[in-house]
């Protein structure tokens, strides 16, 4: 909201006039956010008020006029060339941009010849000063304008002023007018609010012609409705002061009657509406619309209404959407001479809903939507009526108005006092404030305070509907006292409860980063297309993602059920930016429907949000000179094992050859552990399926892994194994075996031999060669034998090794080479 500084201070009685910056600082301390301070007059400089003393046509151009102006009474005249058609008669004042003047757009004036006659500057139109787009003619000040000659143009234009961009908190509807801001400023600086003039005594007329009957159907919907007729007025241009102020707060002046309603709204925060009283046939009735009713608002659009839309009716006919917009049929026009002025208090929620549903946000609905002070409605009515009458009288009309308007006030409430304990003030704020300090702070805000023992009985002003509880008052006390005066302390250290599980995800993150992968964080949602990139069968829970009802775009259609699509898309994106060699991972939640997945079933419960670690690798490893070797499936496997180890410690992980829909059918493995409930698969790795790659836009081979971190047992603190005291012996065995027998099978046979002396198994060679025969491969394994108790004899080692070799030959089967 734009707050004009001169208007604001006019409503304040302060010991010392603050500067706009000081005022802004005080309001900021009060919690009224100031988003900016605008110096209204800084758009131009060097433009002065000058009086026309003579004018004559330019000798060589029809449309130009030579104008003699003076800038001091009795001073010598200067001749200026002017192209406007509205150069006034001598005696009127204009705005002269002299040589050296700065105008908007970076223009600096210099003396220059216009059709052969040198003009020392120019006489300005509104657009040349950045006031408006108006270039119809030069600015001519009103005959009565009091600005002295030679004064800066800013003074005549009301631009010797500042605007504060004020953003009050959401619960402070009372600050949406200059009056409310003035209250805050006075509370912070220690002053008193001065109410503007609302004296109607000069215009009092007989009650009859100025009266209108008011009936309120639902007091909950409309707490108060003040209405009455201002007669004998006419639509006129608003006085400069009102027009300038409205322009400063961002509203264009239209005509005196409508401008006054706006002016008073910005001044007091109370929206008003003016009807042409002659269009009203019977009485005002405030009530709800019927479903399907239609109503033409004053923008000419016919609106479809519902049972929750509050209306102002003329008898039974809608004439306004309460607090939102008036109707076309009762609008004030050039012919209006009698205005029915409305000052009401409508329920905030109703106005907000109707304005939102009809997409009709306005200055009025904004204020009603935040709640207005019902006690203010009567004063606001008189203030507006007084302004209308004064403007009319000054223009020669004979305005009249009822001494007091009709005032239907079914929602009048007594404001209850709130009990505020001084002990509570100290406990919450941490500051010991005595009764006098608290009372002072609250009284500055307009509260009535009565001390009673160790507590205060506080009655808030009617404008502050937000103050209903003890804690509300405590906030007010500490706010006025100043947050900056609260000393900083630290809470006492307390014993912490058990450690959170977050360590699981961070352990995996640290291990994966240490292993050479870079962490990405991607959105929890994605497009349906990307979610489908894995090509999961309908029986897979992950193929039924949770949909978002109100996405901003298709990129936010569904929640992810796997980390891989976003990571794969990131690989493609990096490739397109010239970075084909990437190894990235993410650790985060995926989102799964509880129970069997049925996309059509509405969700009534939370989702499962298991945490996974996943990664995608493509291109080459970093090399020292030139590229390193390409990432391969065993790098993906290594990262998966690192993530498992980081969480679960050095437990046995078995690799199974697996069929995974989104991995290459010949290059995919599952990782299995022995959990508390038997064997369980905790992750997969492999080469991304070419179809998945294509759907995600990845060029060339890419490898992936994923590990269900929640499925892993948490590693207990590792206990040290004894360091071997006695030397061991290694024996190698070279095997010729069928290609399809996996390495894991060889390891399994060795493990199943249950030879107690086996201390380790290593694969030394794995190769295929035509000489071995088609479908065959050769593997060279090294088995370490060791006893913790003694040095083994050759015979013992040989016996153990021969047993294992026999098992391998028989069970794989294989030949020993």
């Amino acid at each position: 909201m734009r707050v004009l500084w001169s208007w604001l201070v006019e409503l304040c009685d302060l010991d010392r006039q603050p500067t706009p910056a000081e005022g802004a600082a005080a309001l900021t301390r009060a919690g009224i956010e100031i988003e900016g301070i605008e110096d209204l007059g800084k758009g131009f400089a060097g433009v002065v008020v000058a009086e026309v003393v003579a004018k004559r046509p330019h000798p060589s151009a029809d449309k130009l006029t030579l104008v003699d102006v003076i800038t001091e009474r009795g001073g010598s005249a200067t001749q200026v060339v002017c192209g406007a058609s509205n150069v006034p008669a001598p005696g009127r004042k204009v705005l002269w941009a002299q040589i050296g003047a700065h105008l908007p757009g970076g223009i600096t004036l210099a003396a220059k010849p216009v059709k052969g006659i040198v003009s020392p500057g120019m006489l300005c139109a509104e657009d040349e000063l950045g006031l408006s787009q108006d270039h119809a003619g030069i600015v001519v000040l009103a005959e009565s304008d009091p600005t002295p000659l030679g004064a800066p143009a800013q003074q005549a234009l009301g631009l010797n002023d500042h605007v504060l961009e004020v953003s009050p908190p959401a619960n402070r509807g009372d600050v949406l007018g200059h009056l409310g801001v003035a209250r805050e400023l006075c509370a912070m600086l220690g002053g008193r609010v001065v109410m503007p003039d609302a004296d109607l005594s000069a215009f009092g007329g007989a009650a009859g012609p100025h009266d209108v009957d008011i009936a309120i159907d639902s007091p909950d919907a409309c707490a108060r409705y003040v209405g009455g007729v201002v007669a004998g007025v006419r639509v006129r241009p608003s006085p400069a002061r009102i027009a300038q102020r409205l322009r400063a707060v961002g509203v264009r002046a239209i005509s005196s009657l409508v401008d006054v309603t706006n002016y008073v709204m910005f001044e007091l925060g109370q929206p008003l509406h003016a009807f042409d009283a002659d269009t009203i046939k019977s009485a005002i009735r405030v009530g709800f619309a019927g479903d399907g009713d239609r109503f033409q608002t004053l923008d000419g659009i016919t609106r479809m209404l519902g049972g929750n839309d509050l209306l102002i009716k003329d008898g039974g006919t809608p004439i306004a959407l309460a607090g939102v917009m008036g109707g076309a049929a009762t609008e004030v026009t050039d012919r209006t001479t009698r205005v029915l002025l409305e000052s009401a208090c409508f329920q905030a929620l109703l106005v907000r809903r109707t304005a939102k549903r009809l997409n009709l946000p306005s200055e009025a609905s904004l204020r009603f939507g935040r709640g207005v002070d019902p006690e203010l409605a009567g004063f606001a009515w008189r203030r507006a009526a007084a302004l209308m009458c004064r403007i009319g009288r000054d223009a020669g009309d004979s305005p009249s108005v009822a001494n007091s308007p009709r005032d239907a006030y079914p929602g009048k409430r007594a404001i209850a006092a709130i009990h505020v304990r001084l002990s509570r003030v100290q406990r919450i704020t941490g500051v010991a404030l005595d009764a006098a300090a608290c009372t002072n702070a609250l009284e500055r805000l307009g509260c009535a305070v009565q001390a009673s023992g160790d507590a205060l009985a506080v009655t808030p002003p009617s404008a502050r509907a937000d103050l209903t509880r003890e804690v509300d008052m405590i906030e007010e006390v500490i706010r006025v006292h100043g947050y900056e005066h609260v000393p900083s302390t630290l809470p006492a250290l307390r014993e912490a409860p058990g450690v959170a599980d977050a360590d699981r995800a961070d352990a995996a993150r640290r291990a994966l980063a240490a292993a050479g992968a870079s962490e990405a964080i991607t959105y929890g949602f994605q497009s349906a297309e990307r979610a489908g990139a894995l090509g999961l069968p309908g029986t897979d829970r992950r193929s039924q993602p949770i949909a978002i009802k109100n996405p901003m775009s298709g990129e936010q259609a569904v929640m992810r059920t796997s980390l891989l699509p976003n990571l794969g898309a990131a690989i493609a994106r990096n490739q397109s930016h010239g970075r084909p060699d990437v190894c990235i991972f993410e650790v985060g939640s995926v989102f799964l429907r509880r129970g069997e997945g049925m996309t059509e079933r509405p969700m009534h419960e939370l989702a499962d949000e298991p945490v996974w670690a996943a990664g995608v690798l493509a291109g080459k490893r970093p090399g020292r000179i030139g590229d390193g070797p390409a990432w391969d499936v065993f790098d993906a496997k290594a990262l998966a094992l690192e993530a498992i180890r980081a969480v679960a410690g050095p437990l046995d992980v078995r690799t199974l050859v697996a069929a995974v829909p989104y991995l290459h059918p010949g290059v995919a493995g599952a990782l299995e552990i022995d959990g508390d409930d038997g064997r369980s698969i905790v992750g997969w790795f492999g080469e991304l399926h070419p179809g998945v790659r294509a759907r995600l836009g990845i060029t060339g081979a890419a490898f992936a892994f994923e590990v269900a971190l929640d499925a892993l047992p948490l590693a207990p603190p590792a206990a040290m194994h004894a360091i071997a005291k006695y030397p061991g012996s290694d024996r190698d065995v070279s095997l010729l075996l069928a290609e399809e027998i996996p390495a894991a099978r060889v390891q399994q046979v060795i493990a199943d031999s249950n030879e107690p002396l086996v201390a380790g198994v290593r694969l030394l060679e794995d190769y295929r060669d035509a000489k071995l025969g088609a479908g065959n491969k050769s593997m060279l394994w090294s088995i370490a034998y060791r006893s913790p108790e003694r040095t083994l004899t050759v015979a013992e080692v040989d016996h153990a090794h021969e047993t294992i070799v026999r098992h391998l030959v028989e069970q794989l089967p294989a030949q020993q080479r």
Partner: protein
Amino acid sequence: MTTSEIISSLEKLEAQFAAAIAPLGDEQAIRAAQAQYLGKSGHVSELMKELRTLPAADKPVVGAAANKVKQTIEQLVAQALDALANAVAKADLSRRIDVTLPASPVGGGHLHLLTQVRLEAVQIFAELGFVVAEGPQIETDWHNFEALGIPKHHPARDMQDTFFIADEILLRSHTSPVQVRTMQTQQPPIRIVAPGHVYRRDDDPTHSPMFTQLEGLAVDTDISFGDLKGTLLHFVKRFFKRDLGLRLRPSYFQFTEPSAEVDMQCTFCGGPGCRLCKQTGWLEIGGSGMVDPVVFEHVGIDPERYTGFAFGMGLERMAMLRHAVNDIKYYYEGDIRFLEQF
């Protein structure tokens, strides 16, 4: 052979050996040459076989001569090996490698900037006894709004702000529901920080539809607004590693009262005002306040017995301020050119 012939032969062997090993350049050859002269069937042993043919009186003389030859040969071997070792050492020290060649690629992985910032923030609060708490990202309306005193018709709940899954299920729009869940399951004293992803329908250079908040909550018999101020001041100084000022500015949040915006001194200009802080000298970093009694009532904590503070801040913003990240979208694109910088 006569005694003198044998002695003369022994002396010749000495000279012959010296000549034989002179050109040898490795230890194995030198040892082989030594064996050729001093071994069981070496030249010296062969000559000594003649010893038995000599008169007894001459044997000690020849024996002494043979010993001398053995010693000389052993000395020559030792000298040769020594020289060889010196030569090897010298040769080794003459090696030259261009150490300005690129380093080997090790590690190469990076934790995401937001992870680093989160871990650091959590660590700083851990110093004050705060532990990490977590909650679901898909939340109930009650936890996200109702329990925090945000009624159904409040503008903050408008469809344009919050992503909904179903009527009563949504993507949490802040981490505050973790406060609610913690207080529902745990009686005070409570000291938690809750980092996590939150979702809002916002998308521009400083707003992302998903972002990361860090929520803090302390509930105890004696928590005051001053404690809130001190805790946040501690965090700002430790996180930015500078003695930056902190300002609490009155504000309004439904679930705290008194409420405060948290401003810190501008990290760029330090106070006089610049473009980053919009000439105010202050940067807004989060919201905070004393837990509203309404929230305590919703979760079954006696507001007369306990007081508490809560705060929330955006980790993206903290990282932006400390690391000059100029567009929030970089955090979520998985662009390796961004990830590898931190």
